[in-house]
């Protein structure tokens, strides 16, 4: 049943599926892989030396190198202008590219048109599986690194990933380039297996086959594409062995199996492979502030220095003035409460401070960068970390992994060293895990380290967001309604935690509806109403201010 060609095609199918896995892992759907493969196949067949002259294996190696490069180059050239597209739009644009390549190959002279170009058969099952092993090795080793986690974070929540300091555009382009390179490998191997480069092999059907293989196998575990390819390649063989030959039964059963896998195995066939997460033992470790040479912690501004300066900051949405002419300074070690009725513009204001929203006028200087003009990840890199009003955790990652992503800016990149199996990579990864565990311990959530974020209770999710924000070793932390939905006891614990952050020297900007909590812990309170600052000062003074009372309770008639 497992003939030589079946074995080869399992490997080829898996390699092609890996090129989909590379982008799906980062939550992007590209259908251009067949186009990258075809660019790679034509280029390498055209440029590689003749196997009859230099020998089979050297010719194939050169062709593979050329193909990988051409595939990656095609992906990046396509990726640059389409990076602003999301979801289905990206899928259709890349599909359009692949079709254009196919039609071009069909009609150009030098490609041999529909006949294609014939090449010798060089690829043996062993060669195909060796290449597959190399590709799988890349995805295996890159998964649990800073780079791999950043891609997963982008898949789960792009906005939150940016706020954690991840350069979303560059990572997406990286994933795209990887997909192109792997598709290039596939294209070359395919050509030297079937002895032909022809446009028909790189059409829409091929793209769909690759996508289906990747999804069936599973797109979150690196063995997924191999499992998927084995499954889909063997089904027709099994059917043939069972004597099911009627033309329509085979595609029907294949469709049915595909449907069953997608509906009943959400993680694909490889979904049952458990994610191994070891929580490091940190009982002997010092606190967060202790010195950790493996981490790239930053120099914090001395206590009392101005870290945020807002000068006449305004934001209009159409005719609505969400924020009007706000002047404000926040200093290191200060816990500033921002309160105001619903719709007062609090969240818009902190979105401008963290760089997510560009101001209509005025300027926000945050830790030396101009927020709104610099991209979000640059603002985060300057030392701004935040939580969100509506929790934006990476839902399918564990609590510990969420915090690891939060530590993107302080954790050292280990991808290259992990590929080379250097011991220092292991040391750094261990240090990163310990750092994340310490952040979890700080908010009292170490026990829940291995729980998936979307399985946590609401209060725990808020605390996890704080741990994730702390992991970036920020100079300014922005907390957007962290106590919402918490009971009295939980809110009291949270108040102590927030106070201790400011006592450690952080600048804390706290948005909160619970006025009692704000009065209890804040150094200074700013009240916003209809986008304007109506009062500012010590908590007790502000609470007594008649304009504040009016904003909250209305005037006496």
């Amino acid at each position, binding site marked *: 049943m497992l003939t030589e060609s079946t074995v080869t095609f399992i490997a080829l199918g898996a390699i092609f599926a890996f090129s989909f896995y590379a982008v799906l892992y980062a939550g992007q759907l590209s259908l251009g892989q067949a186009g990258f493969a075809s660019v790679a196949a034509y280029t390498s067949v055209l440029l590689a030396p003749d196997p009859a002259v230099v020998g089979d294996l050297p010719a194939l190696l050169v062709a593979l190198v050329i193909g990988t490069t051409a595939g990656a180059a095609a992906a990046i050239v396509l990726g640059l202008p389409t990076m602003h*597209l999301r979801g289905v739009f990206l899928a259709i644009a890349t599909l359009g590219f692949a079709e254009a390549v196919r*039609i071009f190959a069909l009609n150009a002279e030098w490609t041999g048109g529909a006949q294609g170009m014939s090449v010798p058969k060089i690829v043996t099952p062993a060669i195909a599986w060796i290449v597959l092993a190399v590709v799988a090795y890349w995805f295996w080793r890159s998964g649990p690194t800073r780079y791999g986690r950043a891609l997963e974070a982008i898949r789960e929540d792009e*906005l939150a990933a940016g706020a954690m300091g991840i350069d979303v555009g560059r990572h997406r382009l990286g994933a795209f380039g990887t997909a192109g390179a792997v598709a290039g490998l596939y294209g070359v191997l395919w050509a030297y297996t079937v002895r032909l480069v022809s446009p028909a092999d790189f059409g829409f059907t091929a793209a769909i086959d690759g996508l289906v293989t990747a999804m069936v196998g599973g797109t979150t575990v690196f063995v997924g594409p191999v499992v998927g390819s084995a499954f889909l390649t063997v089904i027709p063989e099994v059917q043939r062995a069972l004597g099911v030959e009627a033309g329509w039964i085979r*595609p029907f059963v*294949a*469709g049915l199996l595909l*449907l069953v896998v997608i509906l009943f195995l959400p993680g694909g066939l490889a979904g049952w492979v458990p994610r191994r997460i070891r929580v490091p033992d940190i009982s002997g470790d010092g606190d967060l502030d202790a010195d950790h040479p493996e981490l790239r912690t930053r120099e914090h501004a001395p206590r009392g220095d101005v870290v945020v300066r807002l000068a006449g900051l305004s934001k209009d949405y159409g005719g609505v003035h969400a924020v009007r002419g706000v002047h404000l300074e926040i200093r290191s070690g200060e816990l500033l409460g921002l309160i105001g009725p619903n719709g007062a513009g609090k969240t818009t204001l902190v979105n401008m401070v963290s760089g997510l929203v560009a101001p209509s006028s005025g300027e926000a200087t945050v830790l030396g960068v101009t927020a709104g003009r610099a991209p979000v990840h640059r603002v985060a890199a300057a030392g701004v970390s935040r939580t969100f009003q509506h929790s934006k955790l990476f839902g399918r990652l564990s609590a510990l992994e969420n915090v690891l992503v939060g530590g993107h800016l302080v954790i050292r990149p280990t991808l290259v060293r992990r590929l080379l199996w250097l011991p220092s990579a292991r040391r750094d990864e261990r240090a990163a895990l310990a750092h994340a565990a310490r952040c979890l311990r700080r908010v009292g959530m170490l026990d829940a380290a291995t729980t998936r974020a979307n399985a946590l209770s609401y209060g725990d999710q808020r605390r996890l967001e704080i741990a994730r924000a702390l992991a970036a070793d920020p100079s300014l932390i922005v907390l957007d309604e962290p106590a919402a939905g918490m009971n009295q006891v939980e809110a009291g614990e949270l108040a102590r935690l927030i106070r201790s952050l400011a006592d450690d020297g952080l600048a804390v900007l706290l948005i909160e509806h619970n006025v009692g909590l704000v009065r209890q812990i804040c150094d200074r309170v700013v009240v916003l109403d209809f986008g304007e600052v109506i009062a500012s000062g010590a908590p007790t003074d502000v609470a007594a201010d008649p304009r504040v009372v009016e904003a909250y309770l209305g005037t006496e008639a």
Partner: protein
Amino acid sequence: MQQLLNGIFIGSIYALFAVGFALVFGILDRLNLAHPAVFAASAFIGIELVTVGGLPFWAALPAVAVVGALLGLIVERVAFRPLKGRPDAHFAGLISSIAVAGMLIALLQWRYGAETRRFPADAFPATRFDVLGAQVTLLQVVIVAVCLALVVGLTWLVARSRLGRGMRAVAENPTAARVLGVNVDRVTATTFAISAALGAVAGALFAMNVNSAQLTMGSAIELKGLAIIVVGGMGSLPGALVGGLLLGVAEVFAVQYLGSAWRDLIAFALLFGILLLRPQGLFGGRRARQV
């Protein structure tokens, strides 16, 4: 003139097909890749109704629409409803609808075999008109009239009727719609049924226009349909109509001036230009990103 009219005939079928695509995408935010399979299935069924059932070709159209609607309900039930609430519903829906499409095509192969099917020679009236020096058959007039009537009717339905209000509410926010008493499941199923009925009529008309039906006809129009809804603006019904007509005319002229080999490139050149310059499409509104 003849070319322009030919472009409009084929374009109106493209438009009808794309409107079905756009309806599901606009309201449910899902791409239903089983739509082209319904298109192909209805072409074969239409031919069988005329050949075996002895129906006149115009009477086959409503029958095909009913069959299409049923197929749409099945697709929704089997490929989309079970995925509700999954975080990867977007991608998984693509795959499950591809799976259903594969099964549907396999069933067609079982019933009709792999050969091309045709209408009987005397199925269409031979009446011809002279329009501004161009030859037009009665059939072509019927095609354009049916397509335009269905697209306009659908636009009216979505904009004015109670069902349309429910659809737009679901498009805006399914949870809020449910709270306000909209039966989201029923609206979803109805949307699929209408979408598939339109795709089915488009398939039957397409088969009449070229007088043949093949198993692969769905995948040939699939990419064009995708290109049209992107060009028109994802989920925009007038956009799909204009995009379809535009593509039909552009193709016909491309064949005349560039040669038939480059015809299929037109759709993708158009697609790419629009995506880069105006990602929301010609008629699409920009949706604000929420923090």
